[in-house]
């Protein structure tokens, strides 16, 4: 191979880029042609092969991501019923304009936000605390780590159904336990805040361990000398946590906040299964109906595919707004952390 090393450095008179040049007279015309052909092939290879290699993902994405997305957008401009999905009648933006005065949509949006806050904030705080504890040298630390991940490996359906029983009004274990401290039966399914709290509990239970492990991994990557020098400067444990651990975890915290926010905005399985009714109304007064649930109710229970599509796109736009806000905040944070 080294014999052809000369080809890499073309004579100036030929001009052009390295691969395209014609070799000088010592080689016969035929060989030159062959070489040129190979060279063109190589060029094509270099230009197109990468696309072929990444194409499986994009083909899949086009078939199962992009096409449904666009088709949903198209359907949202029509009145379509599930009983006759090909029978569309054009209604323009009516499915979107009606969302503005659709009390059920805004109720669902409010619920999604409040359940999101009630579930995400304590979840991340508890995850941080747990990670901090697990970061100490403990007997059987592997056991604790596995145990924390167990809820994450449980199916939503199984977990939710068990929680429904625990939160039962008349025969639930939680009300039974609360009875000993003198708290009367709480109607976990029908009371507005109680039901949202109960749904959030399922989310917290499932995701705290997962986030704790992410924090733990990031904590273990913090160099020990930072703590040592902080200790030398007279910082106690709490100050070390505030001034060493937390700043080092900033990107990780941001990641978990973004992931939890996305998860919270798509919340669906827990409230669906927490519903005492067979539909998807999220409680008899829609007190814990999330956007995902409302979308499902319109599309699959009420069979209004057009309306459901418009809700889906509106959710998508709301998510984009949330994403932008996240981006701005994270840039601010990064700017402030680099100036530290």
């Amino acid at each position: 191979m080294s014999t052809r090393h000369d080809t890499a450095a073309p004579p100036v008179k030929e001009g052009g880029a390295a691969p395209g040049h014609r070799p000088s007279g010592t080689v016969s015309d035929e060989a030159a042609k062959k070489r040129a052909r190979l060279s063109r092939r190589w060029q094509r290879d270099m230009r197109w092969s990468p696309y072929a290699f990444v194409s499986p993902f994009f083909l899949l994405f086009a078939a199962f991501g992009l096409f449904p997305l666009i088709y949903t957008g198209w359907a949202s401009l029509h009145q379509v019923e599930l009983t006759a999905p090909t029978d569309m009648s054009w209604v323009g933006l009516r499915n979107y304009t009606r969302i503005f005065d659709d009390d059920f949509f805004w109720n669902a949006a409010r619920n999604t936000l409040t359940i999101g806050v009630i579930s995400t904030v304590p979840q991340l705080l508890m995850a941080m605390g747990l990670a901090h504890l697990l970061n100490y040298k403990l007997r059987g630390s592997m056991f604790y780590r596995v145990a924390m991940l167990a809820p994450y490996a449980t199916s939503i359906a199984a977990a939710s159904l068990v929680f429904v029983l625990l939160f039962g009004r008349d025969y639930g274990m939680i009300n039974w336990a609360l009875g000993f401290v003198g708290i009367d039966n709480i109607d976990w399914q029908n009371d507005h805040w109680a039901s949202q709290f109960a749904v959030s509990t399922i989310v917290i239970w499932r995701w705290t361990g997962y986030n704790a492990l992410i924090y733990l991994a990031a904590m273990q990557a913090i160099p020990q000398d930072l703590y040592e020098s902080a200790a030398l400067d007279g910082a106690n444990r709490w100050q070390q946590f505030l001034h060493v651990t937390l700043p080092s975890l900033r990107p990780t915290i941001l990641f978990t906040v973004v992931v939890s926010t996305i998860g919270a905005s798509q919340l669906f399985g827990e409230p669906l299964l927490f519903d005492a009714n067979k539909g998807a109304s999220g409680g008899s007064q829609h007190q814990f109906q999330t956007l995902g649930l409302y979308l499902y109710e319109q599309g699959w229970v009420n069979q209004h595919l057009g309306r459901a599509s418009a809700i889906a796109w509106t959710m998508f736009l709301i998510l984009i707004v949330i994403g932008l806000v996240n981006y701005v905040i994270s840039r601010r944070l990064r700017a402030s952390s680099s100036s530290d």
Partner: protein
Amino acid sequence: MRARTLPHLRLRGNGRSSAARRALAVAAVVSMGTGLLAGCADDGDSGSDGSSGDSAGKTTITLGLFGTQGFKEAGLYAEYEKLNPDIKIAETVVERNENYYPALVNRLTSNSGLQDIQAVEVGNIAEVATTQADKLMDLSKVEGVDKGDWLDWKWQQATTRDGATIGLGTDIGPMAICYRKDLFEQAGLPTDREEVGKLWAGSWDKFVETGQKYQEKAPDGTTFLDSPGGLILAILSGEKEKFYDAAGEVVYKDNPAVKNAFDLTAQAAEDGLIGNQTQFQPAWDQTIANNKFAAVACPPWMLGYIKGKSQPDAAGKWDVAAAPKPGNWGGTFLSVPKSGKNAEEAAKLVAWLTAPEQQAKLFAKQGSFPSAPGAYELPQVTGAKNEMTGDAPIGEIFAKAAEGVPNQPIGPKDQIIQQGLTDNGVILVTQGKSPKEAWETATKTIDNNLDQ
């Protein structure tokens, strides 16, 4: 420069194998893509392949069912296969109709993946009859099918405006009132089923008045009825019209019968006669197990449900009395999609399965009440007893109720309206809301859900 020349050199060294590699990559991508597309296309095809002749030359008829229809358990398939040696029968069962029906609609609209015979629940039959009738066989034209074999209202439920009957009735749910003899006695009410029936004969108002009498001396912690949803449903099931009028228009808000049923239920709930439960939820099941209510609106299948959820000592403590007005709750139809390969044979099987003799056998085994009055004379029905109700002649009681059920128009969105009235309506009264507030929540929910 170095980075750019290196692959260049390598290429020159073995251009041929690289071309082969590239061809392989392209082939892989292409095959993957086409495989995917083929995969999509295949899905529909293999689905509709459900029915086919097998190696022995037999015709296999497939049934798509939900819940426990019990044809197989009652030995009806085996019997039919014996009568028709060329036929083999196979069924696929989805446990819950909520999961079964959306898939059925999907398959009907795309006309693929269907079984030779599909079961349809009464709550969905109107929607299927109004939107999917062109995909289903008109079974009234099948040999041996006689309209007179079925109760008129059952036949009409599966008949379209053009007169095509797209489903043949299997079971129905004629309603009576199941009550606890022991609790009635403790509250000073009669316990004999004739006398109990007389307490409220002909009027749901009297039924609620009886409830008030019960509640005055009720055993601690019990209510007269199980749930508000059960009561409003029972009242509405016996009306001439409920949510749709005969012309097929939604009239639930203007129909005085609906508002009266709502108000009566709300009043009973405000007076504390009704447990604050939603039917078929775990908490409701526990009120059965713990004997928390004295009476419940009760089609034949409800006895099976009660039996499943009761403690053993509750056996024989129930009895069955006639409802104030007869109504129907539940029932199933069998339909035959036109696109099936064995549609003709399937239609014959449906006709056989829904004939009075087979319905009577099914009742004896499964407790699914026959929709063919011819079966009511058969010993399986006349001599029927239930463990929960002791020696009560339930076959006769329910048969009498079945013949009094009005021919009520049902509509495609009955279930949505009904669910709005119960789960977003009367249940709120048991939670301390005013009837007016409950009605407003219910109607607002229903109107939003109906709006296309």
